[in-house]
């Protein structure tokens, strides 16, 4: 017997949970610019505040089911910040961090989860796809967008995100396979938050890593510390650069931990082992970046207070815009069904309007 193929999976981490650079590698250029690091910190804090606010709104009946990204802010902010505005984002439902990085408005995110289709009508992120709820389906759209870019010879790329549980779906493998064989400029980001609702990785996969699923598709892959935004961003920038220049796809597995319930409709105390949260909160991405900034004397308690106040105001403005968006007319159920509404359905539109007016 002879060995005909071998593989190894590399792991990238720059910063440990104390905010100390541990890697022997030189930190990437952007990490040496304190203002960039500060803005990454701020952007992660914004997501935390937004999620908390959305939760509170849900609890008071002003929001639908909402999936927070608590503990996973470095994933979305990290890869979202590696995107240029010409790149396209194909998000999943827990993707608000990357979406907002790429220009989706907070009030659009709130409108979506608040039960209003106008939350998918992005004012700025014009080419980005709306949130995909049917798991793993979005990866194929990302491949198609990249195919179009490739055929037109454009130097753009596509980022798409999926949970680790979602990598069990057939669509995941189909997307990786086609991206590999066609050499498509897609960056597949796996947010391995270690839970798929109540299902832990031990019963999700027999692989040691999710990254290695890329190997079977002939795609380059890397596993990164998803709590280390420097690592997430660095891996994403490299992958994006490669994708934009015809180098093909990359899979980036980011190891995070879901520090919240799956959604507002979930109760993780039913299945989460004791102690996991305590341990998780010690490693979470925001705290470690703050420690780093403090160690560089670049962040003070006063800065923190000031930022928190600003973020609260920013989020409140978005919440106000969301809450002040009046419920649409019943006609809106029909007006974008087709370019032109069939006559038969037009009659139903009239009926809905008449009934709605009562």
């Amino acid at each position, binding site marked *: 017997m002879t060995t005909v193929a071998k593989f190894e999976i590399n792991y990238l981490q720059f910063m440990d949970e104390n905010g100390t650079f541990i890697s022997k590698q030189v930190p990437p250029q952007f990490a040496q610019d304190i203002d960039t690091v500060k803005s990454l910190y701020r952007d992660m804090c914004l997501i935390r505040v937004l999620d908390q606010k959305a939760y509170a709104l849900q609890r008071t009946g002003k929001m639908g*089911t909402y999936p927070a990204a608590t503990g996973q802010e470095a994933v979305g902010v990290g890869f979202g910040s590696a995107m240029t505005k010409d790149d396209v984002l194909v998000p999943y439902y827990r993707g608000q961090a990357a979406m907002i990085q790429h220009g989706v408005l907070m009030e659009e995110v709130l409108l979506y989860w608040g*039960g209003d289709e106008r939350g998918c009508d992005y004012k700025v992120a014009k080419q980005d796809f709306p949130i995909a709820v049917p*798991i793993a389906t979005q990866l194929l759209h990302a491949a198609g967008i990249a195919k179009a870019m490739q055929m037109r010879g454009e130097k753009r790329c596509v980022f798409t995100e999926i949970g680790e549980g979602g990598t*069990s779906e057939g669509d995941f493998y189909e997307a990786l396979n086609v991206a590999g064989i066609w050499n498509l400029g897609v960056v597949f980001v796996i947010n391995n938050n270690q839970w798929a609702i109540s299902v832990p990785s031990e019963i999700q996969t027999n692989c040691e890593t999710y990254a290695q699923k890329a190997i079977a598709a002939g795609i380059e892959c890397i596993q990164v510390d998803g709590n280390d935004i420097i690592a997430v961003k660095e891996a994403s920038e490299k992958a994006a650069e490669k994708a934009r220049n015809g180098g093909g796809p990359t899979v980036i597995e980011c190891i995070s931990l879901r520090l919240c319930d799956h959604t507002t409709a979930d109760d993780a105390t039913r299945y989460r082992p004791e102690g996991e949260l305590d341990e998780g909160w010690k490693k979470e991405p925001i705290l470690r970046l703050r420690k780093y900034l403090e160690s560089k004397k670049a962040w003070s308690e006063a800065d923190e207070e000031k930022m928190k106040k600003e973020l609260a105001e920013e989020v409140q403005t978005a919440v106000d815009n969301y809450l002040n968006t009046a419920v649409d007319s019943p006609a809106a159920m029909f007006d974008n069904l087709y370019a032109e509404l069939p006559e038969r359905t037009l009659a139903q539109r009239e009926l809905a309007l008449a009934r709605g007016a009562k």
Partner: protein
Amino acid sequence: MAAITLIEAVNKAMAYEMGVDEEVVILGEDVGANGGVFRATDGLQQKFGDKRVIDTPLAESMIAGVSIGMAAQGMKPVAEIQFMGFIFPAVDQIICHAARMRNRTRGRIHLPMVIRAPFGGGIHAPEHHSESTEAIFAHIPGLKVVIPSNPSRAYGLMLAAIRDPDPVIFLEPKRVYRIEKHEIEDNGEEYPLGMCFVDREGTDITLISWGAMLHETKQAAEKLAAEGISAEVIDVATVSPLDIDTILESVEKTGRACIVQEAPKAGALGSEIAAEIAEKGVMNLLAPIGRVSGYDTVMPYYRLEKQYMPKVEHIVEEAKRIVEYR
């Protein structure tokens, strides 16, 4: 005897059958420790162990396909699809294999399996969690499609579904999961599949519905009674194969029919029922058949959900129009 909800009845029926038949196994996403996102399988893994209540990886095609293989070996898988909106990856397996296995092997292999899924609107759920797509499955020969409307029927029909030698799609109207309780004796007594239930006798019009919409339909019958119109109410329960005889008998008596469904109107189950009545009972009709339906549009997100859902007053209005037809 305890009064229980529809979802508890589903749970009880599965527990009963697992207790008496060791071939019965449950599989699906989050059905184990979590007991299912609606708690349909609550406590079952504790009771029957993780070999018989299996948390699967996140893959619906796998869930359906694996169920087919297990059923072919004489096991009786009861698979949960977390929401009907996520059944679509499994549709290839269900339509191209589950529905056809008995026929194409000329009876050599048959598949005693159940696929359960919550469905329907009205609970402010996110996108893809509220559609009523029962007609897609009712259209497929070789499948049985069952929709219980209340706790007793959920208990009896679930038992029959598990014991049935062929694949059954068991759709649970989640809007009424917990709105009423029935006293149910947990004695393993089933309700036969393929049979309508006459829920209210009447003489002027037959109102035909199933699932959650039956509740609005019954309220409409109540209101109509107050206005002197006597409505018969039929719960279709097994939407495929359809028990058209019970419906035709009723229409023969009342001379009028109105079908009430949450699903979009075009190409839906109501269309089939109306066509059957027209084909076989048109001479008994005193007025054209009516339908109260959802609209032929995408199920809206929840802010407009109420505008989409058929309401009691729509049923009353349509029933009156039919009764007053000259």
